[in-house]
């Protein structure tokens, strides 16, 4: 069996060099871009509803602040060490992430956005960057976007991940892993190997494989495949320096648009639940319209807290629209009966969501002969509402069904004031 047959796909296009560009403590670094006074100061970023610590600057790490610690437990420690905490400013992070990726695209078209703060870039053999070139790429990203990054270059994606981790500890933030380095791979615990999940990691430990070097040295390919499937075998090859995973540059086609979020406090009555759902529908349908998409179906769901010691309940409902729609007013008519069919009194609801399915653009709409929705009029009204909301802030104008107080809204009390919209631009002093 040759490589191609073994993996059931072509290997040749992936042969070359992979650089993983990894943003350092991304969320914390974003907070510093417009606020230089935070430079070299310990900061942390909190999850939704200011629940847990999800990002820490190096200074906060050195002070012993752990990942995932609940904020309310850490409050006094943060205060003692003068550590500044921020709510997640996803608008800000999204904008800077996009800038980092676009900056990389000025260097090479071969960019795979792997996550909000990581990208793989690909280089054919004859264009393999030198260490000096990597340093210049890194300088450009930092200079242009203000976000510090590390770059690790290696013959495979899996090794590039290892190289990036080494790069992060180096002063110049760059590292080239020329070939699988026995000593280096021994330092990589199996849990930290890219593509190895918790289950496989446990399995590997059980057979005495504790690090990447040992995993790469497992002798029998067919046995590896039988134990860890083709995914595991690919990882082994990648660790040996044979590239099996090419760059995935195409964004997956949008299958659905979702708006789901936990409440800041549980909802226990129908009136508030109804308001919450209409608010979520407002947001979700705005998203749909801003992307020029229409949905043929809508799913809604609600659930109580799975981890609390109280009765658990969850339920969902789906509706198919007669004509693909992005019309909030039309959808509203479906929402109420759907909600009534799944809502049950006596529970403390923690989270709800709305998902639009089976999306198409304008040309994909099939009209219905018996359609009696005033679509043009609704669209005109929604267009005005969308424009007002984008200029004056989300939910400036909304249907009365969304309610006024909304005490269940996500809490972000420590939000930094900067965001990519006209009302929240960063301020520079002229003094």
């Amino acid at each position, binding site marked *: 069996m040759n490589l191609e047959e073994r993996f059931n796909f072509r290997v040749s296009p992936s042969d070359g060099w992979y650089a993983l560009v990894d943003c350092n403590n991304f969320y914390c670094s974003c907070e510093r871009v417009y606020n230089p006074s935070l430079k070299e100061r310990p900061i942390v970023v909190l999850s939704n509803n200011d629940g847990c610590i999800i990002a820490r600057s190096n200074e906060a790490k050195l002070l012993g602040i752990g990942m995932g610690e609940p904020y309310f437990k850490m409050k006094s420690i943060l205060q003692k060490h003068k550590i500044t905490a921020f709510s997640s400013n996803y608008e800000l992070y999204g904008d800077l992430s996009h800038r980092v990726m676009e900056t990389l695209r000025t260097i090479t078209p071969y960019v795979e956005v792997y996550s909000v703060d990581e990208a793989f870039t690909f280089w054919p053999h004859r264009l393999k960057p030198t260490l000096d070139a990597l340093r210049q790429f890194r300088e450009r990203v930092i200079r242009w976007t203000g976000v510090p990054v590390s770059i690790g270059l290696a013959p495979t994606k899996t090794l590039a991940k290892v190289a990036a981790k080494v790069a992060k500890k180096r002063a110049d933030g760059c590292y080239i892993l020329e070939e699988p380095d026995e000593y280096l791979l021994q330092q990589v615990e199996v849990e930290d190997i890219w593509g190895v999940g918790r289950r496989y990691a446990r399995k590997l430990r059980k057979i005495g494989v504790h690090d990447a070097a040992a995993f790469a040295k497992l002798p029998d390919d067919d046995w590896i495949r039988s134990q860890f499937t083709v995914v595991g075998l690919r990882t082994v090859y990648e660790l040996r320096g044979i590239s099996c995973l090419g760059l995935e540059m195409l964004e997956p086609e949008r299958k659905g648009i979702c708006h789901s979020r936990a409440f800041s406090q549980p909802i226990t009555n129908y009136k508030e639940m109804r308001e919450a759902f209409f608010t979520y529908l407002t947001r979700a349908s705005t998203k749909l319209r801003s992307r020029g998409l229409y949905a043929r179906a809508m799913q809604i769901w609600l659930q109580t807290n799975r981890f609390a010691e109280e009765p658990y309940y969850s339920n969902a409902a789906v509706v198919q629209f007669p004509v693909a729609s992005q019309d909030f007013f039309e959808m509203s008519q479906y929402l109420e009966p759907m909600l009534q069919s799944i809502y049950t009194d006596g529970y403390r609801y923690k989270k709800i969501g709305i998902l639009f399915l089976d999306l198409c653009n304008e040309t994909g709409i099939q009209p219905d002969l018996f359609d009696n929705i005033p679509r043009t009029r609704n669209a005109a009204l929604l267009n005005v509402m969308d424009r007002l909301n984008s200029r004056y802030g989300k939910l400036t104008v909304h249907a009365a069904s969304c309610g006024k107080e909304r005490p269940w809204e996500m809490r972000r009390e420590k939000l930094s004031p900067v965001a990519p919209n006209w009302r929240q631009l960063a301020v*520079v002093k002229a003094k």
Partner: protein
Amino acid sequence: MLLPLFSSRVSAGFPSPADDYLEGDLDLNEYLIRTPPATFLVRVSGNSMIGKGIYDGDLLVVDRSLEPLDRDVVVAVVEGELTVKQLRFQDKEVWLMPANRRYKPLCVTGMDLQIWGVVSSSIHHFRKRVE
């Protein structure tokens, strides 16, 4: 926002010969922003730069990809704050100059000066708008 460069009214019958010369839409983004990923919009607060035509509330287009040169208007970090000033290199000295006699120049020679970005243009509204 896209503005048509010029266009003739649509009429039945003959098409306007001028349509042939339509050059497409004028894009202000294209005019103001040379390097999109490195370009940031910030709001001005204060009057120290009015001599350079930069007023309180104006919008600055800051291009972080530009190398700061003598006489550039820049956003610099002063005492941890983003501050707009004119950069001057003179007789081996580095200055951050205001453009208003009521404010003092700041000599930053030998200090760890951080230039946040170079201001490439400023947008000023002459008629008050509600924002």
